[in-house]
């Protein structure tokens, strides 16, 4: 009889930790989003504002819409490019693919680096005075060597995307290799014998069977892209201007730099909306009945 209650006692520490570090801050941030919460003033938080923080973001803040746009395009391109490149690599590296296994272990290096570190390294590499890229272009194609990559809004945006794609390819490749390995070899060989060329086997047999894994990869990457912060923070710090300011960066800036905690909590909660949809879709694909 007592054993029955023991199990609750055993999970209690975990429940407390989750509550203290995840649930409570969540609830608290939701509460704050309805207040005028300026860190710079005493008596925190200040007056109750209702939904004014939210309407402010929507109606009065072009910077908010700018970061929505940056985040959306950033997510679109990183998801697309990472998935395509990872798929290509996975096809080469999968069992029966064309490359050797040792390459698989090399591949993990970018993923072993923290996003902040990736940001710093790319920032060095794109430095106009002593950066690797301009030095490289100086030899290969001098007209490109004078470009100051991180000062141009468009180029800076693409450098961010490049760093992100570079950092995420390994993980997605490994997931896709796993997915490819679980496709029955029989079906692929049957297609070869049935008369399909390599390309048709891929299109008609391999990819359709990879769809569930691909969906998981797309959703996961979208979730991570949407909340990109540390890499952009280290690489461009949102600039030049606000050209690379993602939503997370915008939240951070308003909250901790301008001390508008209430407003940034509201924006953070706006980010939750697409996340909920993505997480729901993710759970659906991962936990679907086989």
């Amino acid at each position, binding site marked *: 009889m007592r054993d029955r209650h023991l199990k609750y006692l055993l999970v209690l520490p975990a429940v407390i930790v989750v509550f203290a570090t995840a649930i409570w801050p969540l609830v608290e941030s939701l509460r704050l989003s309805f207040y005028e919460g300026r860190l710079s003033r005493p008596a925190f938080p200040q007056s109750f504002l209702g939904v004014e923080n939210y309407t402010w973001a929507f109606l009065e803040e072009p910077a908010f819409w700018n970061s929505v746009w940056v985040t959306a395009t950033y997510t679109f391109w990183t998801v697309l490019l990472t998935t395509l490149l990872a798929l290509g690599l996975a096809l080469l590296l999968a069992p029966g693919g064309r490359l050797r296994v040792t390459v698989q272990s090399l591949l993990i290096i970018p993923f072993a680096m923290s996003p902040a570190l990736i940001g710093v390294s790319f920032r060095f590499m794109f430095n106009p005075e002593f950066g690797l890229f301009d030095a490289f272009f100086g030899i290969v194609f001098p007209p490109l060597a004078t470009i100051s990559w991180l000062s141009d809004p468009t180029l800076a945006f693409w450098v961010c995307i490049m760093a992100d794609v570079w950092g995420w390819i390994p993980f997605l490749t490994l997931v896709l290799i796993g997915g490819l390995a679980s496709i029955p070899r029989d079906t692929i060989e049957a297609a070869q*014998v049935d008369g399909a060329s390599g390309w048709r086997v891929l299109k*008609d047999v391999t990819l*359709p069977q990879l769809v569930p894994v691909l969906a998981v990869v797309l959703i996961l990457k979208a979730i991570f892209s949407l909340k990109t912060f540390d890499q952009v923070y280290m690489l461009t710090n949102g600039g030049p201007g606000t050209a690379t300011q993602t939503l997370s960066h915008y939240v951070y800036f308003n909250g901790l730099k301008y001390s508008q905690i209430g407003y940034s909590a509201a924006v953070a909660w706006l980010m939750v909306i697409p996340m909920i949809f993505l997480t729901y879709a993710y759970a659906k694909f991962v936990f679907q009945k086989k």
Partner: protein
Amino acid sequence: MAKVVLTNLTKRWGDFVGVDNQSLEIHDKEFLVLLGPSGCGKTTTMRMIAGLEDPTAGEIRIGDRVVNDALPKDRDIAMVFQNYGLYPHMTIYDNIAYPLKVRGTPKPEIEPRVQKAAEQVELTEFLHRKPKALSGGQRQRVALARAIVRHPQVFLMDEPLSNLDAKLRVSMRAELKHLSHMLQVTTVYVTHDQIEAMTLADRVAVMKNGRIQQLGTPDEIYNDPANLFVAGFIGSPAMNLIEGRIENGVFVTQGGFAVTKVEAPNRSGLVLGVRPEDLTIVEPGTGDFDVPVYAFENTGESVQITGQFNRQRVIAKGDRYLKREIEEMTGMSVDQKHLYLFDQSSGERIRN
């Protein structure tokens, strides 16, 4: 339609030899069965013919063409895989139609051909389903239909019936036999089930350790085995193999036990082979030898009596109304016309 010729075909992985320098000619329209125990290289041989495995050495011809360097799709073959290899995301119709579509068959031709193939394997009512929604036997038939929907030069079938239950296997076997008679296409069929081999084959190649031990009609394989391995592998229950020597026209086994008269010169280091159905059960004292009954089994259609002398056991098949008690003495008489002698060390048949 075409013949398939394998010349000195070898497959090695590192030091391990999967198929060992085999040559084999499969005639046009022939139904050839590769038979042998697990791991003897049957699948490997077939996969090399299909182009799914590269031979280490040797040559493969289909028709008049050397196909060693041809991709599977260019070999004009159809294959039935052991686990069917159906496309799980396609309907049965699309599964069967796939070889036609991918080879650019004109659209209006596809539909009637899929229908016909589905009729031949009695699948017409399942065409809209996915493979998951079919039973093992039905999936098996989809795999067959997908193979026969084209008119390939060669059919390759890798243990296509091994996943079915005993009853379904027997009925599918008959269907296969009928189908192959109708289609008249050169077929290579892999199995480790000797009944399948005997009933389906025009010729059987018995394999062991990557080598063909004997190639012949089912009749030859059964009645004229080339060596100990083939003799012991074919037949159920297996042939009785009794070690011993010949002394003055009598085969004598351990302990000086005289088994039967044999017309052959004196020689030791021999194995005598007698099929259970060539051993007749008689009253004690009236046959070639008497043995105590070790086991009595009734299979319904016949009885099997196991006798034991010293450490040697012999099985005889008898009439289904026959009865013997365990430990009771029984006589056994040997059919002199169907005795086989083998060299004990080399396993080769000794013909006299």
